[in-house]
């Protein structure tokens, strides 16, 4: 009969059921799409707080005398600009400018960095990092030993503060603290980052400790509205915040400039890097296509892969992500379209089940914190 692939599981898999999770195959991982309802979870993160298991994400340790120069050769942002206990969002590209992955770089020590990569790209990324190794550097893929939780939402700080002596208000956006004790669980890296367009933290720790931390957070947070959240809400939240998703907004066919994460591309940094020539050329000549925010004004919801047409009927691109926005109650999406149509207020059509439905280019992010 059908060939059955063995799905990977995070160390929290056994706990999901206790919290009512509906589990699905998500790119080879058996992960919770929702616990209660996507809309309820989305709402919890916008108004109170949500807890996500994101242990499927990959982690690679880069150590050695040349760690900084090696990473700077590998990625598009300038890692020389960050200090110890700072994190940076960046992209890793092929020489032609297509994207290998988007990632976070954490500077742990002067010669030691943690790279956090997408779950579906772990093997590919690690192989790419090995192929492009330069100088005195060692790489260690610690993905299968490392767990990660994200606590996100306006109450994330106060909930987490109940469990630790470290003053969380001192951890600024995109900075972190190492070896924090949270509710008796030690060795947690606490990072003020996230993927929901809300304030919050990402917590990295050893696999064997994550179940205790998950339970502890829900124990103290539930009365403040903390809810376990699945990947469904993670997707609607990140899309409202216009955060790119690898495989949709970013791919080997789409450069970080086209994807709209040009803020993470420093073509003028001192060191050379892979894709420098290609990305510099894209910048100088101007982009032929780019990702824009769209709102479907007719009746329908845009989805990944749907075709986009100009008002006069020319095919100009494709929807990369789309959903009914739970916060805005509108049908929103991101689309990769030809640059001449990529201007705010431009009228477009999205082909939804063989019908051309009206849409318009809008400013992003669709949703901003505190609005």
């Amino acid at each position, binding site marked *: 009969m059908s060939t059955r692939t063995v799905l990977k599981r995070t160390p929290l898999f056994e706990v999901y059921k206790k919290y009512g999770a*509906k589990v699905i195959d998500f790119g080879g991982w058996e992960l919770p*799409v*929702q616990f209660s*309802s*996507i*809309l309820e979870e989305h709402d919890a993160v916008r108004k109170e707080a949500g807890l996500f298991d994101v242990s499927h994400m990959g982690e690679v340790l880069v150590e050695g005398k040349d760690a900084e120069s090696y990473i700077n050769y590998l990625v598009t942002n300038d890692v020389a600009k960050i200090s110890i206990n700072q994190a940076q969002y960046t992209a890793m590209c092929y020489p032609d400018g297509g994207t290998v992955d988007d990632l976070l770089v954490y500077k742990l020590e002067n010669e030691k960095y943690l790279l956090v990569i997408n779950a579906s790209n772990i093997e590919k990324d690690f192989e790419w990092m090995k192929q492009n190794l330069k100088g005195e550097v060692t790489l260690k893929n610690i993905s299968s030993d490392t767990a990660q939780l994200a606590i996100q939402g306006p109450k994330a700080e106060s909930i987490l503060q109940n469990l630790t002596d470290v003053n969380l208000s001192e951890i600024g956006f995109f900075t972190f603290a190492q070896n924090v004790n949270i509710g008796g669980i030690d060795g947690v890296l606490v990072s003020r980052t996230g993927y929901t367009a809300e304030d919050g933290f990402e917590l990295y720790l050893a696999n064997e400790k994550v179940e205790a931390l998950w339970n502890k957070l829900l124990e103290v947070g539930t009365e403040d509205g903390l809810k376990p959240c699945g990947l*469904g809400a993670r*997707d*609607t939240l990140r899309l409202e915040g216009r955060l790119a998703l690898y495989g949709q907004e970013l791919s080997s066919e789409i450069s970080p400039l086209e994807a709209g994460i040009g803020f993470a591309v420093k073509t003028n940094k001192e060191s050379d890097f892979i894709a420098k020539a290609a990305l510099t050329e894209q910048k100088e000549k101007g982009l032929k296509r780019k990702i824009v925010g769209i709102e479907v004004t007719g*009746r*329908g*919801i845009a*989805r990944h892969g749907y075709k986009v047409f100009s008002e006069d009927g020319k095919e100009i691109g494709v929807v990369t992500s789309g*959903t*009914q926005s*739970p916060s805005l109650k509108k049908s929103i999406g991101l689309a990769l379209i030809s640059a001449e149509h990529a201007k705010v207020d431009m009228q477009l059509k999205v082909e939804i*089940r063989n019908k051309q439905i009206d849409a318009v280019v809008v400013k992003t992010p669709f949703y901003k914190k505190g609005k």
Partner: protein
Amino acid sequence: MTNATANLLYSKEHEWVLKLDGNRVRIGITDYAQKALGDIVFVENPSVDDDVTANESMGTIESVKAVSELFSPVSGTVVTVNENLEDAPETINEHPYDAGWLVEVEVSNLEDLESLLKEEEYEAFINEGEE
């Protein structure tokens, strides 16, 4: 399930059918289906006067995550559409058997209803699928 659902007929595509006067039936999706779909955010019903065919697509229903087809459990002509769903598709999640109904159809051949499942048969069908 409640008493209200005992008189319904069911399709293997998880639609229910309620026989009204004459050849008219009301169609909706089952509680099992709405739970499986999750939060419903969009419904595309057929229009009044459209012909529908048993076991063929008559529209679509979308949850936050996914698009699914609606299959007609009967053949006939659409006579009424639940227009409230246009602004409040979540009604299907809340009241799948009453306020969340989809369409009413004038069935061309009432004998077609005999091929649909009775409540206990439908329940057995669902339980089989879950194993």
